[in-house]
């Protein structure tokens, strides 16, 4: 059974913890983080997840991303431009 842990996630500056399992896709983690932070109904693809400043693909799993209870990921909205 895959291990579960509480992942620290900072959503637009607001810190919270999301219960995740190692096999969970990051897109699901983003969805749950948006729900828990009150950003209900927002599309995860409109957000970016970063670890140590590096952008994470939402199609990989928690373990593939090397996430643990000691790593903090940062979730920020993509900032579209008009030009």
């Amino acid at each position: 059974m895959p291990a579960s842990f509480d992942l620290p996630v900072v959503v637009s500056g607001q810190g919270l913890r999301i219960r995740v399992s190692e096999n969970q896709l990051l897109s699901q983690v983003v969805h749950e983080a948006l729900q828990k932070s009150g950003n209900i109904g927002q599309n995860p693809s409109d957000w970016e997840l970063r670890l140590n400043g590096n952008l994470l693909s939402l199609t990989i799993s928690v373990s593939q991303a090397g996430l643990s209870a000691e790593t903090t990921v940062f979730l920020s909205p993509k900032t579209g431009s008009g030009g």
Partner: protein
Amino acid sequence: MADPAPVLVDPEVSRAKLARQLQHWDAQRDEWDRRGYFITHREDLRVTVAFAARVVMQPGLPEIPLVLVNAEIDFANYDLWAPSVTLVEFLSRTPSIAPIPIQQVSNGQPVNVLLNDHPITRLPFLCLRGIREYHNHPQHSGDDWLLYRGTGRGTLISICDAIWKYSTRRVGGLGFNAISHPILGVQVQPVLIYNFDELASASGAQGAA
């Protein structure tokens, strides 16, 4: 400079909302320090944030931090209005244009998001959602700030995240261009070298470092 903003939101409300964002900022300050941006001034509803890049002068030697972007963020009438962002010179804090490009990636190509001559302020401005100068630009009258209020955009942290991502994060090191001129001789000019890691991939995403 533009005229002072009319008071549409009780400043105490805007101050309370900014104070909450500053609490969030302080809680994660290690991350902002690591990214190279830091608050230099806090004055009522204005916060000034400096963005430094770590420039490699020579492999093996310590990186040198260079403040290349300095942004004054004004939360007047927040959050009925989006925050206003003015790029200012680091020492004089007068409106200025950044010495490096501020670009986002669109369809694999860099697109400038720092544009000249806003029709209202007449200043350079960041053309990004969540920033007042974007939403009050006549060309964006159909993309109102109130559509994005409360969606995570237009916060101190999300604005700084965008500025860092599109500017100092991409600075990698210092190089030199050498030109042999028939009259002036050899001319050497220092140039900043940019990382294009997120530009190179179509998705702009990568696995963990």
